[in-house]
């Protein structure tokens, strides 16, 4: 039997909604398991990509330095990198902060807001720093495919992965293209 396709997934500045939607393929996951195995993913709790991953599914945009590191790890490890969902593709909901200067966001959250005690900007070196703006992932690495939707439906994942697995150029018919 040929080697299984290695799939890695992650959520950057996203809500895991795309992952939940992926799991909505329901019992088809058994078929998927026949041909694919999961590498780094919240589904496996594996924390690092192995060297040669076939497909990386990235949910969420880039809002901080850690997101950038994770995305780069995916790009380096994955033959095919896929932007999954509105946030990965255009920044999505998190990008709605983009018209507010970061200073104001931080001041409002940690210094000036009602009910803040001991106001200070968190500065632990363990914490990732925020980027000035939230960016979609194609602005930082090359992306091979895009699966739009908030979230993309389970059928989108299914169509895309089965296309790839059977060597077809992935394509989405009209009913599966949604930006919401």
């Amino acid at each position: 039997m040929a080697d299984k396709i290695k799939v890695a997934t992650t959520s950057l500045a996203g809500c895991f909604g795309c992952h939940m939607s992926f799991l909505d393929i329901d019992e088809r996951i058994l078929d998927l398991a026949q041909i694919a195995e999961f590498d780094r993913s919240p589904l496996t709790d594996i924390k690092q990509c192995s060297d040669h991953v076939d497909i990386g599914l990235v949910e969420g945009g880039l809002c901080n330095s850690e997101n950038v590191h994770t995305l780069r790890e995916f790009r380096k490890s994955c033959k095919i990198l896929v932007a999954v969902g509105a946030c990965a593709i255009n920044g999505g909901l998190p990008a709605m902060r983009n018209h507010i200067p970061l200073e104001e966001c931080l001041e409002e959250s940690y210094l000036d807001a009602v009910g803040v005690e001991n106001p200070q900007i968190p500065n632990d070196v363990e914490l990732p720093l925020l980027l000035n703006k939230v960016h979609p992932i194609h602005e930082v690495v090359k992306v091979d495919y895009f699966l739009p939707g908030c979230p993309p439906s389970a059928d989108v994942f299914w169509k895309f992965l089965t296309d790839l697995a059977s060597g077809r150029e992935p394509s989405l018919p009209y009913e599966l293209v949604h930006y919401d």
Partner: protein
Amino acid sequence: MYNREHLLEAAGTPMPLTETEQSVLMRIVDRHAADATQLVQILREVQASFRHIPADAMDSLAAALGIERAQVQAVAEFYTFFSTKPRGRYDILISDSITDHMLGSREIAAYLSERLGIQPGETRSDGQVSFDYTSCTGMCEQGPAGLVNGLTLTQLTRERIDRIVDLVNAGTPVTQWPREFFAVKDNIRRADLILKTELKPGSALKWSNTRGADSTLAEIEKSGLRGRGGAGFSTGMKWKFCRQAKSGPADAPAERYVVCNADEGEPGTFKDRVLLQSYADQVFEGMTLCGRVIGARQGYLYLRGEYLYLGDHLDRVLQERRRNHLLGSNILGEPGFDFDIEVRIGAGAYICGEESALIESLEGKRGVPRNRPPYPVTHGYRNKPTVVNNVETFAAAALIGLKGGAWFADVGTEKSKGTKILSISGDCAKPGIYEYPFGTSIRKILDDCGATNTLGLQIGGPSGIFISDREFDRVLGFEDLPTGGSFMIFDRTRDILEIVRNFTHFFAHESCGFCTPCRVGTSLLRNQLDKLCAGHGAKGDLVELTHISKLVKNTSHCGLGQTAANPILSTLERYPELYEQRLRAKAFEPGFDLDGALEVARRMAGRDDAHAHLEQEAVL
């Protein structure tokens, strides 16, 4: 993209106008007979009096002119010489053309900025002075150039900047500044048909009165004269179409217009400025002749705002012509030959050089090109048949009216009759105005102006093409190298990509914003070139640059967008290696500075540890 500060300020209540201010405003309106088509002229005066267009003035103007407030605001926010926030009592702009750069304008501007203590785009806190960059002011062979309160400054040096700063700080009125600061030279180096043939004011009109309008038109047609703005449409045909066009109901008096396009905004072009300075009578004679041929009673000369200093001179010439019965009713005693000319001045918008945008501007609107067809010859100013011709075209037409079509058609080539006046600037010993018969080779021109070690030249301005040193045997003319007359010469010390970047920034700044591909595409091109020039370009970026260029070229609404990518496309074709040298080896590189994007967070968290930084690493 308007920024947040602007929004917050806009939300505040503007200061109501005082009674005095209100009366100043109304005097301006009265001077223009409360004519809404003169909105750009009116706003020019409001800007000059108030140093901005106050929000309250917009309401008063709208009421006084009987137009919507939104129109006043839209026009105020379209033209770069208008500002909705107060500018300094001395408003200094430095010309940002590549030819100014080559003469050291960026260093001069940096010095000015340092001496004034303000950055480009800022107004000093005491309200005394503002400073910014502006598109080419048409002083390419006598730069670095600029404008102070709209008036042309030439040959700026550090010493001159020192004196200007002193005058500004002392509050000396601009009218009392040394005259030599404002001296504009003609620099005519080679004169031929147009610049050398003497035309006594009125002589072409007299001849036309004798032989009649039909015969005059026939001479223009016989001359083979084609529009000198660059597009090269047959002048005779244009006049004929306009003459034949219905101007309204058969029983109504015919209403047609003559418009002279003196919105010489193409960077590197300054020959119209010289014609208007020293051959104004000839230009007006050509316009009047056109008026006679097409049956128009009114002409307009639309002068680019950067040439404000020519306004008084032109008005004086017009006055003189009226006194000599060369304008007005029954010109030179010919019953029913009524024609007059008015000078209208623009306010900083390259797009108004496009004839239908120019007409919109003449009508007191934003300079947005119209859909065509219909063309101005049938639906022009006030929707009436209108001839719009370039300054040089009218200057040539006047002489043809006097000397006849054959005299003109004898010179030049089969498809390009007569001569072309060139504005030559850049790397050559003798920049200035050169008039050549069509068919002259580039090599000859370069020899004449003393260009050595030439890398290439930009012909026809940024919207034209870049030709390399392998193409110097090409010739002037519609068959080979058509041009509006801009000749910018670059020697081997110049960086082609920087030149292209300057042009691309220019188009992004001047796009009117009407159609999607030009509005968005010119900004995308600007960003893409900036990325490349900053050393962050990867292979994919070149593909992307070409892709966007073709899109903008092929789908834009008007000539601006259709030519905006020419500098990129024509240099990519000739010098692909120059672009490739700038690329990183990687296939992909982020378009923004990642580490810079953490700067604010670092500062606010007071961190500078290793985890607080990102490398601009390119993956794959």
